[in-house]
C-alpha cells in the first residue's frame, strides 16, 4: 500500500511545491524556524554558560569549604588555637588561613600604591595550583625573617617592567621582600568578575605577614579542605559545631561557603531554567504548527482539481492523505533544520559576546528535530485527512 515510489514522489513533489511558492513557504516555515532556533539557541547558551561557571567553580575547589569568621564583639577572628581546633575537626584534611589587604610597593624612587596583597600558607598551595615559575612557600618562610613573596604578571610588568623577576627585591609597605615565584594568570571566576586593569598587581605573602602589616591578631578567613570519603555537607556540619563552640552560638559570627552545594544548586537551577525556556519556545512551535496547518488547508483547497484527478486515476484516500502528510512534514522539518542552524549561530555569537563556552547540546538538537517532525504530523493531519475525503467528482468539477 505505501510503496517507496509514492513516498519518493510525494517527497519530490513537496520540494517542488515549496520551490514554486518560495515566499509563502518561507513565511509558513518562519514560526517553526523561530521556535526551534530559540529553543536551540537558548538551551545551547545556557549549557555553555553553566559549563563555564561550573568549570570555574570546580577550579575553586570542590572539596573545599570557605569559612569567613568575622567573629563577635567579644572575640574577633580565629586565633591559633582556634585554627588548631578547626584542623582537628572530623572530615577535615587540612586548613589554610588566608588574609588580604591593599598596600604599596616601592622600587627605587617609584611608588606603586595600588597593590593587592594576598596572604596564604603552605597548605594552600597543595590545593591550589597557581605557581607558574619559581617556588612556593615552605615552612621556614612562614616564620622566617627573610620575607619572600610570589607576584603575578601584572605586578612584574608594572613595577619591574620585565617578566624576569625571580630573585628581585623591592619594598612592600616598607618591608624588604624578595620574589621567589610568579603565579599563573588568574582565570578564576572571581577574577573574571573584577576589573583589575587599573591595579598595579598582586603580591602573595605568608599570611602572618599580612596580619602583622594590617595590625590584626587573628585570621578571619580560612580555606578548609575536606578529607576523602566525607560528604561536603557532613564536614560543613562538623565545622559549624566547632565554630559555634568558639563563638558561643552567636548569630552572624561566621559564614561557610560550600562550593559543592553551590554547584549542585546551580545545576538544578539551570536545569529548571532550561526546561522553562524550552517550554516557552515551544509556544512558538505551536504557533508555527498552526501556520503549517493553515498553509496546508489552503494548499488542499487550491489543488482540489489535482486531488480529484489523482483519485480518478486510482489514488486511494490513504495515498492522498499520505501525500499531503509528507508535504507538511517536509515543510516543518526544513523549518526545523534551518532553525537548528540559526539557533546554533545565535548561540555561537552569544558565546563570543558573553565570553562563555560554546557547548553544542546534542539532545537539544535531537529534540528540535523530533519536535518539528511532530509538528508536521500533528498539524498536517487534519488538512491531509480532508484532502483524502474529497469527492472526486466535485473535486474535478471545481475551479
Amino acid at each position, binding site marked *: 500500500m505505501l510503496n517507496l515510489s509514492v513516498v519518493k514522489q510525494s517527497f519530490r513533489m513537496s520540494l517542488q511545491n515549496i520551490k514554486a511558492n518560495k515566499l509563502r513557504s518561507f513565511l509558513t516555515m518562519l514560526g517553526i524556524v523561530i521556535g526551534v532556533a530559540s529553543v536551540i539557541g537558548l538551551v545551547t547558551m545556557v549549557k555553555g554558560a553553566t559549563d563555564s561557571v561550573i568549570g570555574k567553580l570546580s577550579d575553586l575547589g570542590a572539596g573545599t569549604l570557605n569559612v569567613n569568621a568575622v567573629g563577635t564583639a567579644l572575640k574577633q577572628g580565629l586565633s591559633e588555637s582556634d585554627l588548631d581546633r578547626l584542623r582537628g575537626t572530623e572530615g577535615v584534611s587540612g586548613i589554610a588561613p588566608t588574609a588580604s589587604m591593599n598596600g604599596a610597593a616601592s622600587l627605587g624612587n617609584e611608588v606603586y600604591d595600588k597593590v593587592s596583597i594576598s596572604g596564604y600558607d603552605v597548605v594552600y598551595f597543595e590545593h591550589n595550583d597557581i605557581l607558574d615559575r619559581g617556588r612556593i612557600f615552605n615552612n621556614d618562610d612562614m616564620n622566617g625573617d627573610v620575607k619572600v613573596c610570589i607576584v603575578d604578571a601584572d605586578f612584574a610588568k608594572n613595577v619591574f617592567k620585565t617578566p624576569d623577576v625571580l630573585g628581585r627585591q623591592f619594598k612592600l609597605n616598607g618591608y624588604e621582600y624578595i620574589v621567589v615565584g610568579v603565579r599563573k594568570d588568574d582565570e578564576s571566576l572571581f577574577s573574571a568578575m573584577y576589573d583589575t586593569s587599573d591595579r598595579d598587581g598582586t603580591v602573595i605573602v605568608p599570611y602572618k605577614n599580612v596580619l602583622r602589616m594590617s595590625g590584626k591578631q587573628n585570621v578571619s578567613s580560612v580555606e578548609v579542605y575536606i578529607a576523602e570519603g566525607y560528604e561536603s555537607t557532613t564536614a560543613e556540619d562538623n565545622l559549624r559545631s566547632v565554630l559555634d563552640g568558639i563563638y558561643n552560638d552567636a548569630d552572624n559570627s561566621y559564614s561557610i561557603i560550600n562550593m559543592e552545594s553551590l554547584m549542585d544548586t546551580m545545576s538544578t537551577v539551570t536545569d529548571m531554567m532550561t526546561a522553562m525556556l524550552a517550554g516557552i519556545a515551544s509556544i512558538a512551535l505551536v504557533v508555527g504548527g498552526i501556520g503549517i496547518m493553515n498553509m496546508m488547508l489552503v494548499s488542499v483547497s487550491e489543488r482540489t482539481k489535482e486531488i480529484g*484527478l489523482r483519485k*480518478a*486515476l*486510482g*489514488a486511494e484516500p490513504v495515498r492522498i492523505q499520505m501525500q499531503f502528510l509528507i508535504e507538511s512534514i517536509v515543510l516543518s522539518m526544513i523549518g526545523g533544520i534551518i532553525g537548528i542552524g540559526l539557533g546554533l549561530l545565535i548561540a555561537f555569537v552569544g558565546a563570543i559576546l558573553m565570553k562563555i563556552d560554546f557547548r553544542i547540546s546534542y539532545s537539544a538538537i535531537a529534540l528540535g528535530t523530533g519536535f518539528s517532525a511532530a509538528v508536521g504530523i500533528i498539524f498536517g493531519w487534519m488538512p491531509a485527512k480532508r484532502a483524502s475525503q474529497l469527492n472526486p467528482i466535485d473535486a474535478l468539477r471545481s475551479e
Partner: protein
Amino acid sequence: MSDNEILRMKGIIKDYVLGSGTSRVLKGIDLTVDRGEFLAILGPSGSGKSTLMNIIGCLDVPTEGEYYLSGKKIADQDEASLAQIRNKEVGFIFQQFQLLQRQTAFENVELPLIYANMPEKQRRERVREMLEKVQLGDKMEYFPNQLSGGQQQRVAIARALAANPTILLADEPTGALDQKTGAQIIELFHQLNEEGRTIIMITHDRHIAEHASRIVRILDGELSEGDLTDA
C-alpha cells in the same frame, strides 16, 4: 453476460438529495457495451450524461440498479476499492486535459502506473511506449505549458492507455480544441479503436458523435438507441 460484453447496466437509477427533496437524474438506464465498440453517448447539458459517465467510470455508484464492468459488479464499494477499480479498468480523458502542470509529460503518464504499484523499470518502458504511440516520444520531458492543446490531449490519452484499462472514457475530448486539432484526436481514437480498444465518448456535439460506430442518445435521464435521423 456474453463473452464479448464488457459493460452491462441494468435499471440504473441515480437520485441526488437536494435541500428541498430528491432529484432523479437517471431514470432506469439499461446499457450494454461489447469489447471493441466505439460508442458515443449524445445528449444536451442537463440530460444526465455527466452523471451517467461518472457511474460508468466508477466515480460514483448508482442509487438503484446493477452495473457490471469486466464481469465485476460495481456495487456500493468504499472509495479505496473504487479507486483501485478505476485504476485498472477505466482510462479517463477529459475536456480540459487535466494534466498536472508541474510534472513533465513523462511524469503525467506515469501517474496511474505508480498507483498500480508497477516497478520503476517497467513503468519507464511502458510510459515511453505510450508516448511514442501518440507520437510524442520526443517530448517526454516537456511540461504541459510547453505543449499545444492537441499535444496535451495526446499526453492525456497516453496516460489513459498506460495501465491498459478495459475502457477509454472520454468526456467531450475535443471540446477545448480547434476543429483541425479535434479531428486529429478523433483520428487517433479511430486508430486505437481499430487496434481493439473499447471507447466510450460523451458529447453534446452530433458531428463528433457521428464518428463513433454506435450512438445512444440521452435525454432527461433516459437512454434511447438510434441513429441521428431520429433527431
